[in-house]
């Protein structure tokens, strides 16, 4: 297997509605920004991996539309769709393309154009996804209403409610800690020019003043629905060393599914457990990815983490699953400011998914943001310390599929 590095990154500005561009133009913007950053021409790219949340935006085969907008006309294009973790898997697919020796330069791009749905937020997209994914339960004779409340427990947002409740009970943390995570992420996002929800100086008290949506979540806790795209250029070692001053090496990766599958859970005649705060897939992915990367003690060896956290409890849960803090203690580290941008273990210095959620793109952005931190190109949200190793996650599938990617400034 060959070493693979990220040699260029590109993204678009994220906002609630990008009416100025259609889907292809928006994805094109991110790709051209990445190619420019890498100083690579489209003619030099061997292959493309692309993806968004399946069914969202109402374009069934977006890769068929994108070809000549992203420089992929006449080139191999592979579409990957694993729900919320899509972007992470798109990046990992590009890694495989180069690591295998099949291609020397690959572009990974992921996006979401939420505003192309008529209903606000993700309603239309989720309906689309739900229709396809719930057929197996309709098979059991459950009505759609029952599916939503009993089995899907309200899709990702409903799952996250239970997830937060389970975690708070288990760890002894409180809603106040969700306020703290959200406030930190909005403050960080204010330093990231591409981010959607920017709130300079946001305090936990500000978040606590927002209205309840579904306990334990307030409006201020929850991610927005964003339009936006991101892209990265990946290259083999020879090219990376010649073409890039500071290539970022993909040192380890894994994407595991686990039994916390809401769609085939115990509530629907399956075996999936319903404590979504466990996220065993994250633990399994982290162990595999760290072993591949040669990381023995993530608490010492990881310098920054970009965690997929549309809901603030997820930053705490996944930070523990990634071994960045001991079990049930991430909230204590949060209290001490250790996860702040200038803390011991900065989590989501970009503001993360909590501040910007163009779903398909979100997990690719986590990897991209880690790359920017290692390259030293994160500008205002650059963490004020040397970054040698970073870890990125994506959460998706049927709330049970996690992609973990470990990045570093050296391939070894």
């Amino acid at each position, binding site marked *: 297997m060959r070493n693979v590095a990220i040699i260029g990154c590109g993204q678009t500005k994220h906002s609630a509605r990008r009416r100025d561009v*259609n889907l292809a133009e928006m994805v094109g913007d991110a790709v051209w920004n990445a190619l420019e950053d890498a100083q690579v021409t489209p003619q030099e790219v061997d292959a493309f991996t692309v993806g968004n949340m399946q069914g969202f935006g109402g374009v069934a085969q977006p890769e068929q539309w994108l070809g000549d907008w992203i420089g992929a006309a006449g080139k191999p294009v592979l579409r990957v769709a694993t729900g919320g973790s899509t972007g992470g898997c798109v990046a990992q697919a590009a890694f495989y393309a180069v690591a295998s020796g099949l291609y020397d330069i690959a572009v990974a791009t992921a996006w979401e154009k939420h505003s*192309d749905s008529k209903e606000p937020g993700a309603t239309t997209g989720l309906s689309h996804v739900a229709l396809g994914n719930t057929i197996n339960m309709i098979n059991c004779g459950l009505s759609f209403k029952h599916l939503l409340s009993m089995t899907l427990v309200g899709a990702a947002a409903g799952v996250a409610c239970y997830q937060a409740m389970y975690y708070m009970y288990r760890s002894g943390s409180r809603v106040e800690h969700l306020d703290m995570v959200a406030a930190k992420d909005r403050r960080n996002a204010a330093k990231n020019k591409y981010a959607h929800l920017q709130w300079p100086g946001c305090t936990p008290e500000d978040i606590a003043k927002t209205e309840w949506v579904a306990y334990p979540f307030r409006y201020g806790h929850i991610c927005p629905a964003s339009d936006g795209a991101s892209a990265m250029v990946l290259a083999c070692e020879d090219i990376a060393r010649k073409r890039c001053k500071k290539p970022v090496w993909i040192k380890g990766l894994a994407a595991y599914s686990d039994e916390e599958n809401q769609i085939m859970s115990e509530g629907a005649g399956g075996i999936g457990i319903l404590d979504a705060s466990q996220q065993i897939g994250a633990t399994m992915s982290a162990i595999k990815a760290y072993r591949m990367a040669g990381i023995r003690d993530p608490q010492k060896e990881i310098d920054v983490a970009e965690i997929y956290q549309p809901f603030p409890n997820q930053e705490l849960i996944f930070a523990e699953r990634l071994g960045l803090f001991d079990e049930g203690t991430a909230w204590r580290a949060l209290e001490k400011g250790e996860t702040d941008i200038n803390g011991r273990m900065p989590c989501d210095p970009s503001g993360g998914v909590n501040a910007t959620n163009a779903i398909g793109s979100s997990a690719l952005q986590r990897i991209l943001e880690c790359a920017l931190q290692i390259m030293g190109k994160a500008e205002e949200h650059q963490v004020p310390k040397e970054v040698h190793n970073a870890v990125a996650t994506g959460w998706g599938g049927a709330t049970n599929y996690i992609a973990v990617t470990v990045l570093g400034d050296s391939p070894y």
Partner: protein
Amino acid sequence: MSSQSEIVLTKVPVPLVAGFQWSVGELMEKFIKALADRKIWGVKCPECGYVYVPPRWRCGKCYAKLGEENLTELSGKGILLSYATAYVELDGAGSFKDLSEPKPIGAIKLEGADSTLFMPLGEVKPEELKEGMKVEVVWREEPKGELADIKYFKPAKR
């Protein structure tokens, strides 16, 4: 053994409606609005010279960036490259029904454009259609700035 009559069938309605409102982007919005003035905008690539209608902001041939400054007005006259004729249409109930009269459709290259438009053809009998014949646009009586403003193309006067 259970008999045929014991098989349980449950009908489950799925109350889903998925509506969309796609953004078309700035150049395409301009193209659509200009139809109200009976104008057809194309865009000419400054690098390779390829002319697209409707316009787009990235050349699909050489990947040069295109913008408003590259918009170019097309005459509405063109050449019929190829054609097909429909004799049936969908009946909305999963089957076909016969059309009261055949509907010809054509692949048209507008004067000055390199890309091809597919449009309905009118004021012409299917047997009169011929590759290479000259055609011209017929506008709706009161164009409103929407795609339907282009009613069809008809054979051009000599």
